[in-house]
């Protein structure tokens, strides 16, 4: 790799200062490095300075309470997967984080990194959006919070300005009788980038019918996209075959997919429907268990 500097600040203020510093090429955040180092080595991106954020307390911890989850942006995927209460509360999110690469990648990759890398196929993003997550950003001008669906603006692009850093994700506690699920399709059982992904977050009523739903698709558009028509198809139903078929069709329609070396647009469209149906069933089964 072309040479760069390296700093590992222990405070958020120091990190912001470093990230706001001059340089051509400029500074970049290093969390798990599982995307960044690959791109640096390939020459796809350049960096003058890597700011290692793993030792900053605000990014390194997670806490779960009555209000919900505060997930430090640099917490590694393996830690999330090992957290029993997280798995029980947000199974879909944990599923999504858990498929980001192999055990080796899980030991380093972070949700923050997955989000900031802003790949159209990022696995955590649809699940985060489905859960109505928020991003907390800190920068030279203070901090701001915004819905996660506003964070990624295009392939590889986010709203982060100069000197800004994503510090945590906030996810509200699920309502009663609610559960999420995330499914994706890859040619092999692991290790591949998602060809399509679907996150479904459902709330069931006391009568067992679907009261509310969010359906978010990944890898079928420049960014993760919500499929509100698919969600509407589920609401009021008991997830019977006809409703699922409508939801699947709506999901397929919502796609703006491309042909690339991982799949054709037509294939992605078809999969979006199949995965939506399967994820909806999984979320409903989980939600019913919480009744």
């Amino acid at each position, binding site marked *: 790799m*072309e*040479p760069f500097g390296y700093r590992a600040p222990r405070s958020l203020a120091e990190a912001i200062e470093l990230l706001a510093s001059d340089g051509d090429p400029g500074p970049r955040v290093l969390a798990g490095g599982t995307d960044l180092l690959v791109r640096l080595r390939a020459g796809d991106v350049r960096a003058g300075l890597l700011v290692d954020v793993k030792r900053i307390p605000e990014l390194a911890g997670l806490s779960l309470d009555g209000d919900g989850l505060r997930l430090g942006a640099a917490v590694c995927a393996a830690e999330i997967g090992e957290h029993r209460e997280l798995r029980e509360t947000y199974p879909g999110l944990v599923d999504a984080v858990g498929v980001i690469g192999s055990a080796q990648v899980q030991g380093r990759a972070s949700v923050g990194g997955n989000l900031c890398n802003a790949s159209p196929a990022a696995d955590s993003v649809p699940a985060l959006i489905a859960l109505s997550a928020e991003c907390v950003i800190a920068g030279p001008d203070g901090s701001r919070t915004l819905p996660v669906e506003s964070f990624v603006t295009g392939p590889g692009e986010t709203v982060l300005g100069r000197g800004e850093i994503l510090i945590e994700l906030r996810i509200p506690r699920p309502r009663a009788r609610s559960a999420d699920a995330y499914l994706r*399709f890859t*040619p*092999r*059982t*692991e*290790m*591949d*980038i998602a*060809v399509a992904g679907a996150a479904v977050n459902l709330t069931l009523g006391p009568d067992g019918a679907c009261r509310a739903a969010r359906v978010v698709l990944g890898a079928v558009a420049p960014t993760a996209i919500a499929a509100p028509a698919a969600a509407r198809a589920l609401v009021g139903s008991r997830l019977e075959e006809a409703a699922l078929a409508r939801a699947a069709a709506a999901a397929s329609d919502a796609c703006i997919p491309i042909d690339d*070396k*991982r*799949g*054709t647009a*037509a*294939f992605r469209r*078809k*999969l979006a429907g*199949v995965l939506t149906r399967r994820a909806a069933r999984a979320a409903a089964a989980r939600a019913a268990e919480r009744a």
Partner: protein
Amino acid sequence: MSEPRYKCIGTRPIRPDGVDKVTGRASFGADLSLPGMLHGRVLRSPHAHARIRSIEVEPALAVEGVKAVITAADLPDLASQAAQGAETQTDFRDLSRNVLARDKVLYHGHAVAAVAATSRTAAERALAAIRVDYEVLPAVLDLDSALAPGAPILHEDLRTRGLAGGGAPTNLAARIEIGRGDVEKGFAEADVVVEREFTTRMVHQGYIEPHAVVARTAEDGHSVVWCCTQGPFVVRAYCARILGMDLSRIRVIPSEIGGGFGGKTTVYLEPLAILLSRRTGRPVKMVMTREEVFRATGPTSGTRIRVKIGATAKGKLTAAAATLVYEAGAFKGSPVTAAAMTMFAPYRLEQVRIEGFDVVLNKPKVGAYRAPGSAMAAFAAESALDEVALRLGMDPIDFRLANAAREGTEAPYGPKFRRIGFVETLEAAKRHPHYSAPLGPGQGRGVACGFWFNVGLQSSAAVNLNEDGTAVVVSGSPDLSGTRISLAMMAAEELGIPIERVRAVVADTETIGYSDLSAGSRVTFATGMAVVEAARDVVRQLSERAAAIWRVDPREVRWEEGRALPPQGAAGGPEPLGIEELARDAARTGGPIVGRASLTARAPGPGFATHICDVSVDRETGRVSVVRYTAFQDVGRAIHPGYVEGQIQGGAAQGIGWALNEEYLWDSSGAVENPGFLDYRMPIASDLPMIDAQLIEVPSPTHPYGVRGVGETPNVPPLAAVANAVRAATGHRFTDLPLSPPRVLEALDSEG
């Protein structure tokens, strides 16, 4: 099954070289570093087809830390001359131009220059500083385009071998034909005729260790080369020719090798490292990146194969014909000939004709990949046979049994088979519980067979007896798969001593006699034969020493279980003399005891296999999963059954990957789109079930222990086994590989 008369053969001792491998101590190609070493890197063409107008290396030499830059101008311009590999042929002129492009670049990634510098970073900067002026030419990236009239021509002087009267430049390098009888007559006699066209894509051997070399040239011009290779003597010979050096000026020491499968039977970096070390007076290390391995080594051909098979209503094959069109890559020499020879070899056929075409196009020069050429041909043949059986309403194994080659059958390529075990593999498959196990919904079962001739070729070996009666087996065959332990076991069996008292080492080109490649499934067969002969030489010498002590005729001395036994009948006769005593006294009785042998092993026993594959197909996503796999192979005699099983399991896994997901993807400019393990999708542990390897032993009469080569045959059936299973699961016959989910889904959806 093996008779219990062997002490060591057929057991499963732990390989002595294994400890270094499980502790990380074993030294592979990139593990050596020498003081003062420079790092070498290669500049590669960004165009699939272009004329090189000029190369300016001076800017690179000006980069700090850069010590030398070379191009084809620094190599002799070789005339065309054939160079024999283990199973493939190459041409030295082509080989030299593949190592460094001269006049033209012929594929994206083709080596254009090489540099040596004090660090990898400096070397990379040097590459960026070299200025190459290219005249970009239109590229040909598929078989049809390459053969179309008016196609861009890769080599102006290429004419089709095997076609008379060809005057114009062409991309058709060769036409071959084999066969006998009258296929039209045979088809006329058939009640069922199946004719189909099949296509496969370029795939890579996928060895996990990238090519690596360290070369050091002394002031007297003698170079020592450390590299991962399947053939140190081939590296020596090829480098000597490419560099215009005497063979004796190059010593090649093979490191441990992290996979080869045929892909490390030629040279890419080695001549460059030698020349750079000579120029700089310092050792030079060159290691390929994974991307370079995919772009610029020797994957195997993409193919188009048309096959036609006829059979009577009773299930007797009447004729088989095929046309094979194989990609050679940038230079002539695809494995189309071997493919033609093997594709129908498992069957008795009076009328058979196979025509093959070797086509150059702007892709990397193809290399040998485990039974080169035959997996694709078997995909076509065994799929078509499956279809014939279906139409006849016959069980696929019964159909093959009715037509199976046996001892005395004349192969399509000429020779009569001696004792072979194909029928035994079919019968074992039929009997096996897998064949009658129930299938779940969405599942299907496929059967396919395969053949590979295996090769013999030359090997040298020595068995050195130590003063304590232990022995060291020395050979020139790099160990890819556990051959050291098998060689040691054969020596232990001959000497009659425990395996723990025998070690085996791999020597280099200056410490052992000439040996051909570790390829062609030949090591346990041919090098094994040499080891057996060398061990018998030791036994003969030991017997002579004993005879001298006893003052008897050496021919009357018997050797049993590690001891010399005196002639019977002598009352109050001498006690037997053990190997330890005789070894201890060797200095006094005549000197060191070293057994040696060098030979050309003849008549290797061919390998036959029958594979059963169960798949589960998700009709909504097109994903195919292999849920059960059993491979039956005639292995002759399994010296170490565990490592024979390993060969079969590994070959099956490669074939499964080839069938399901592996393929080179190209962009419109001719660059590989997936030169990495993310998008070149090889099977991972969670993709596969256990692979049951059933060893059928029908000893080959041409080896002292009945050994047949085993390494390549397992790669041949899986493509069709998987495809036939998918047909059974879905009703759809897939004729295009790989069976990636988008393709499968599209086919299933279009059928409704």
